[in-house]
């Protein structure tokens, strides 16, 4: 499992990087899958309502009413119909990639289980909704879908009478099944939407709307497809004929040929096993559960930064319990915390400068403390020599930097780059532990802990507390969001940074020499 996940993770990294070459990072479609899913859902809803106005809900006239929309009123109802179909196809595509990506990024275990498990019924429902939609057209494809679906359901020994008998011959056909399908087609997506709301309960500030530019492009894609390649029906259903050659929608019906040919024990057995495994995956070995963040009230002033930076809504601010003069204190919800460390990076007491008092942030990860981070920094610094000493802070999901370390390059590992309090950068440079500091991690907008890169960028730019102090020379700090497979790109960026550093470091040295000279020259200054 771990190997598959790793390989898939690297594949995603490469695709995201490739798309990143021509998409601005916030527009990258691969980094907006959930939001695109919602976007398609809304398009399906609007077009669905319009199409329903002209749809004849009786089985005998349904086909004709859809033909009317497609051919007579092609300019509106026809386009709506095409939008409805193609947005549904794209919904399935982005949903399945989203599922794979959450798996590949290892975001289905531990506290993430909640979103994962609630995603599974949504997936099933989206398929059921689409399949019931194809049923409503009552063309040859609908006939095929109806027959294969009912025959498959009949394999379960729960129906008194084969329901496939409803599609035995033209005069056996009744409207009741059709009415049931219309109901399913409308009710299931609504239920799925309700579950999606639950799906996002543990994600703070979820991205549910794609950035405008991406939304416009994707809508343009759908419109172009609808105009140049509109959705058509196949010939009308005729129960006196075998629907022998049908054009399938391979996004919704890829398994239908298998349902037809494989024995019921296999299809029902495998289907059930697949769903059970999917739901059980968060608890299957190898289990990985890092210790959640721990609050140390003695060092907490209730500033709420951890609360606003936590990407998983795992912190609540509650009434102060220790009698100190602060109003509130953070409380970590152990079930929601994914141990990303963003809170520790946000805490104003994560200051490495203190030598007298113990370095002890108000909130910290027991497995990866800020103290151990400072120890790492000092250890790495001791090994650095030369004029271009660079300390690299690498996130646990960043590139594999083995072999990058050298006399003048040292690597410090963190859980997430957002775990790094900006004061550490100041510390490294002002204590002359290195000449430059470089931060790396996931690809931009692809942060494994959702917000680590955003918060880091904002902290460095002085837009979010705790911010990097003004006295830090910005030319000596570089960020490069490399992604897990971006070692080559990172190395190139590192070399470039080192070159640029020459200038600053020299200036620095020159300045300090100069200041020594001047202070020696003017002892009274």
């Amino acid at each position: 499992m771990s190997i598959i996940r790793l390989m898939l993770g690297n594949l995603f990294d490469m695709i995201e990087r490739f798309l990143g070459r021509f998409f601005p990072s916030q527009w990258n479609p691969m980094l907006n899958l959930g939001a695109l899913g919602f976007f398609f859902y809304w398009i399906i809803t609007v077009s669905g309502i319009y199409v329903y106005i002209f749809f004849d809900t009786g089985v005998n006239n349904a086909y004709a009413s859809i033909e009317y929309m497609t051919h007579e009123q092609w300019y509106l109802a026809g386009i709506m119909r095409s939008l409805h179909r193609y947005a549904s196809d794209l919904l399935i595509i982005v949903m399945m990639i989203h599922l794979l990506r959450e798996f590949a990024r290892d975001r289905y275990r531990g506290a993430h289980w909640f979103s994962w498990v609630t995603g599974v019924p949504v997936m099933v429902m989206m398929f059921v909704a689409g399949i019931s939609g194809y049923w409503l057209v009552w063309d040859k494809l609908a006939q095929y879908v109806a027959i294969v679906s009912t025959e498959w359901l009949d394999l379960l020994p729960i129906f008194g009478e084969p329901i496939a008998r409803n599609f035995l011959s033209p005069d056996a056909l009744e409207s009741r099944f059709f009415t049931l399908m219309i109901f399913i087609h409308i009710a299931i997506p609504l239920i799925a939407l309700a579950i999606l709301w639950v799906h996002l309960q543990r994600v703070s500030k979820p991205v549910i709307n794609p950035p405008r530019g991406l939304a416009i492009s994707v809508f343009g894609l759908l419109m172009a497809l609808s105009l140049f390649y509109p959705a058509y029906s196949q010939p009308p259903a005729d129960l006196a004929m075998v629907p022998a050659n049908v054009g399938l929608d391979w996004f919704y019906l890829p398994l239908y040929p298998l349902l037809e040919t494989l024995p019921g024990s296999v299809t029902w057995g495998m289907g059930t096993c697949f769903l059970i495994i999917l739901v059980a995956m968060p608890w299957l070995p190898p289990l990985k559960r890092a210790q959640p963040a721990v609050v140390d009230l003695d060092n907490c002033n209730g500033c709420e930064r951890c609360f606003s930076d936590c990407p998983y809504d795992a912190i609540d601010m509650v009434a102060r319990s220790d009698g100190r003069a602060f109003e509130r204190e953070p409380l970590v919800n152990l079930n929601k915390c994914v141990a990303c460390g963003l809170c520790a990076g946000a805490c104003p007491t994560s200051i490495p400068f203190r030598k007298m008092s113990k370095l002890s942030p108000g909130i910290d990860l027991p497995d990866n403390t800020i103290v151990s981070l400072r120890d790492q920094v000092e250890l790495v610094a001791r090994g650095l020599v030369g004029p271009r000493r660079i300390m690299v802070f690498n996130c646990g999901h960043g590139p594999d930097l083995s072999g990058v370390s050298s006399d003048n390059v040292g690597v410090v590992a963190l859980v997430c780059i957002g775990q790094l309090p900006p004061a550490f950068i100041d510390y490294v440079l002002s204590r002359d532990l290195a000449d430059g500091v470089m931060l790396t991690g996931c690809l931009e907008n692809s942060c494994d802990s959702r917000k680590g890169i955003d918060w880091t960028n904002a902290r460095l730019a002085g837009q979010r507390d705790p911010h990097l102090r003004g006295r830090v020379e910005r030319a000596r700090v570089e960020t490069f969001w490399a992604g897990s497979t971006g070692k080559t790109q990172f190395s190139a960026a590192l070399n470039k940074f080192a070159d640029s550093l020459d200038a600053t470091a020299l200036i620095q040295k020159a300045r300090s020499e100069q200041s020594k000279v001047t202070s020696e020259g003017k002892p009274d200054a």
Partner: protein
Amino acid sequence: MPDTFRYASQFLFFTIVAVFVGYFSNQPVHRHFPEGMAQIKLGFAHGAKRKIDCRKLTAKEIAKLPANQRRPNNCTRGRIPIHVQLILDGKILYDDLLIATGLFQDGRGKVYRKITVPVGPHTITARLRDSKRASGFDYETTRQVVLQPYQNIAIDFRADAGGFLFR
């Protein structure tokens, strides 16, 4: 990368997605039925006679029963298996005993079967035994048909409609 090139690449990307979605939304065509053949679909559910005939209760016996359970007959639950045969041009195409469904075999026996047959003229006989008789059938229907390619002929059974229905 210059901006025009980036926009061109984005356009290309969306075009590829559009072509991909458009194509696989209804192609390639799925051919799942042999060319030049037709199909007979046999499907019905039917309750056979009981294994032990119901016995009429006497007025005295009925009176003895609790008020909410009074009934004219006393029946055991099991039903006889239904013997069904389908014969095409003198050859047996299908021959089966349908066991009644349900825990006590008191439900209906059911069958749903699709059989692929060559096109052209055929004589089809469907017959069924649902009683305790030792030989012969209780229902039998024979039809001459000329099957067209991909034609689907359904054979249903309804005792109240007099037996087999070809449609």
